[in-house]
């Protein structure tokens, strides 16, 4: 382990001198180092990959602040943590922006959403144009007849999140079909 740590510092020193091979090896080693850290904190693999790319770019931009005389790992982790916080802040503020008022949701849940004069088949073309998650939820609920609870269990979400996603999908569909 000590050798590996030493080698990261050596690789960074060589990178600062302009050694392309050392830099590629350092970035690969950093990716291996940080992936478990990010995987523990994020749910989806694509999120981990996106954030990993941002972190590598940040390491590239900030490499002049590393002199090779102090341990590399705390420096890299500090950048990773900073970018992770940025990512989570953006994610949650986005969630808040798109949050649905519970009163509005309550009214809608009383509506007979499964008994419509319109059949699922007649609007399946529009459903498929929805984001993948919403389309899957509507397909499972209205084509295959699952309840929101069953859909939640099937796709690994909680029940209220399924209802919210379905509600958003109904809203979009209503707007599109009324046009």
């Amino acid at each position, binding site marked *: 382990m000590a050798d590996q740590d030493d080698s990261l510092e050596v690789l960074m020193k060589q990178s600062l001198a302009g050694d392309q091979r050392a830099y590629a090896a350092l970035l690969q080693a950093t*990716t291996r180092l940080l992936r478990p850290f990010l995987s523990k904190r994020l749910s989806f693999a694509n999120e981990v990959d996106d954030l990993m790319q941002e972190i590598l770019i940040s390491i590239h931009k900030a490499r002049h602040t590393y002199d090779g005389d102090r341990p590399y790992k705390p420096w890299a982790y500090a950048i990773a943590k900073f970018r992770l916080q940025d990512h989570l802040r953006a994610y949650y503020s986005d969630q808040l922006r798109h949050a649905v008022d519970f009163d509005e949701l309550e009214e809608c849940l009383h509506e007979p959403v499964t008994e419509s004069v319109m059949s699922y088949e007649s609007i399946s073309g529009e459903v498929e144009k929805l984001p993948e998650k919403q389309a899957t939820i509507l397909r499972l609920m209205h084509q295959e007849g699952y309840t929101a609870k069953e859909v939640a269990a099937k796709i690994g979400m909680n029940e209220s999140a399924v209802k919210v996603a379905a509600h958003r999908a109904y809203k979009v569909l209503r707007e599109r079909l009324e046009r």
Partner: protein
Amino acid sequence: MDDIERLVNNLSQDVQAVKPVPHPILLSLRWLAAAFGYLVIALVISGVRPDLGLQLNHPWFVAEIAMLAAILITTASSAALLSFPDLHQQRALAFAPAGIFALFVLVIVCAWQGDSPPAPLPLHSFECTLSILGISLLPTAAIFYVMRRFASTHPGLSGTTAVLFAFGIGALWLRLYESNDSILHVIEWHYLPMIAVGLSGLWLGKRLLRW
């Protein structure tokens, strides 16, 4: 080849020799030297208070000036450390200004208690705040300009220490220039505005030190 491999290849092909930035101690010494030079120039232009020699015999005045100097030194070193993503792995030193500010408050409270009978309040008031603001603008702009070249992972805190450093210069200049013995005036129109403006550095840092 996945996206990360492609990115690693692109970044490594672009890499060129880079000169690491100076050590934070050297960096803060440079900032302190610049601050000292600026303070001397400001005092040469404005002149020092005529009773400075007399004031230097008062222990609480000397303690206050010493604390202002300590604030300058600690905020400069803290701002330098906070400019590095990992605080140059000297976290305790980066938060040293908090302790110095606590001591400063203690010194001011003692000076206030020792101000008996209280010195008369001067006729002016907010002009002192404006003077500190005027003197501090250039150092604020300069330090933010320099810090933007770094990569702070604590932009709000970096902004606060940078603004406190710059306003420390202004506050020190005014204490050496203005003939005023009222500690109440100094608290109300020198130090409280300085701390309030310092807190605005939190906002400024978050906007100017993002990278």
